[in-house]
């Protein structure tokens, strides 16, 4: 997909009209994620109920790709178990690195699979994975992310 098309069809919607952006009341886990070279800077908050992600929200600023990616991620992970979310993050990052390409895996990612073409834009890879990377980090090391 041409980049412009990607923006028009997917990214803009999430960037301009994000669903999960905002400050979460009493989150269970909170972690900041940054891309020093771009200045992308988000703070991700999760509410965990019975081992499942009950809600996910983020604040911060960054390029459209980083913002849209984290918004789409929130869509995908709410309702999933922690383990499942970590696995999905692995799939997403594998896709962006060009290592995961099979249909079945990509289907799991639902709308987020639209970012697949970012694999061909090395300079934007960090933007696309920022949210996912931050989530993975906080779920794997909850001690770093006390709310």
């Amino acid at each position, binding site marked *: 997909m*041409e*980049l412009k098309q990607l*923006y*028009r069809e997917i990214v803009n*919607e999430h960037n301009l009209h994000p669903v999960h952006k905002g400050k979460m009341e009493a989150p269970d886990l909170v972690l900041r994620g940054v891309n020093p070279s*771009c200045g992308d800077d988000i703070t991700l908050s999760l509410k965990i109920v019975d081992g499942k992600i009950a809600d996910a929200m983020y604040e911060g*600023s960054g*390029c*459209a790709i980083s913002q849209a990616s984290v918004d789409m991620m929130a869509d995908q992970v709410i309702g999933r178990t922690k383990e499942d979310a970590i696995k999905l993050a692995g799939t997403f990052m594998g896709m962006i690195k060009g290592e995961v390409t099979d249909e079945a895996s990509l289907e799991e990612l639902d709308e987020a699979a639209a970012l697949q073409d970012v694999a061909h834009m090395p300079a*934007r890879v960090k933007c696309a994975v920022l949210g996912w990377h931050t989530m993975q980090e906080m779920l794997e090391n909850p001690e770093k992310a006390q709310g």
Partner: protein
Amino acid sequence: MRDFRQDFDILNSGDYIYFDNAATSQRPRQVLEAVSDFYKTANANPLRGLYDWSVAATDAYESARSKVADFLGGVKSEEIIFTRNTTESINLVAYSYGMDNVNEGDEIVVTVMEHHSNLLPWQMVAKKKGATLVFLEPDEEGVISEEEYTSKITDKTKIVAIGHVSNVMGITNPVAEIAEYAHSKGAVVLCDGAQSTPHMAVNVKELGVDFFAFSGHKMMAPMGIGALYGKKALLEKMNPFLTGGEMIEYVTRTDATYAELPHKFEAGTVNAGDAVGLAAAIDYIREVGFDYIEEKERKLTKLLMDGMAKMPYIKIYGSKDYTKHCGIVTFTMDGVHPHDISSVLNDDHVCVRAGHHCAQPLMQFIGAGSTARASLYFYNTEEEVERFLEKLSGVREVMGYGA
């Protein structure tokens, strides 16, 4: 006037608009051929050999040095040290001059618009020696006032390190005035000429600076070659920085005496090939002429800034006067992150930079985390500027803001 653009194969091989000249320039065929010719006819290790090729290599290398000495306004050849780039030149001064001459309680003055390469080495010196960094701040238009520098350069100041032209705002700093004042306070002055040498005739004696650093790759020479000018009296007193082959006189197991200037500061096999490329780039610049370069850049910059002024959602940083930009126009666009601007423009084969431009303190100062930058050189064309403006005006629509 012949069409210089024809000399740049990369500019004639497609429809890319290259507006990232402040990061690195393109190289004309003449420069690439000069380097290849050196390797094909005179290649040997200079300075060491007693045979014809080595003598020829030495000649090529040393006449490149003379050419640089000339290019900076007619200084002595031995005042020119070849380095990899501006960054290495400044590190050399920081390590060899700074570490030995800055002491606890001293001050080092820089501007807030310095490139990281003219900031981090001084942070290191300040930290290791217990000195303080003092920052000159410009006004909205990028100008450092006399009041600003006379109030911050004091008897405590040991070094003033200042950019000649800002790589973000394009402004030319009043280096000569600052140097004169700094000298009256007993400080030594280094000028970072990375962004000036490609665009204007530089005379380090008129600037009155003690050190002047620049990179070949920004002025059409190959990557991997730059230079440091240093006043002979200072260089002579300084300890070597890198040590090894070529820079010695006598070596025993535990001691060494050093070669004379400039070799004292050039350890190891020199980069003669790229020095020859730098000499060819200087010849090329002379052929084009700084008059033409300035005139062409100003014409293009005016066209560019006038066009951007018609887009109300664009903010340009630095002076409103197009003659004070050295071809550099840094901007932001309401609602669109600079990285997205750059990526969208790339889809249209337009190359501009986005980010912090290695000047994070300036970004913090102007309150922009990141900006986009279009930077021109004389080989760019009016047609390119017009096409750029057209593409730029389409970015917000792509990003979902309607037409």
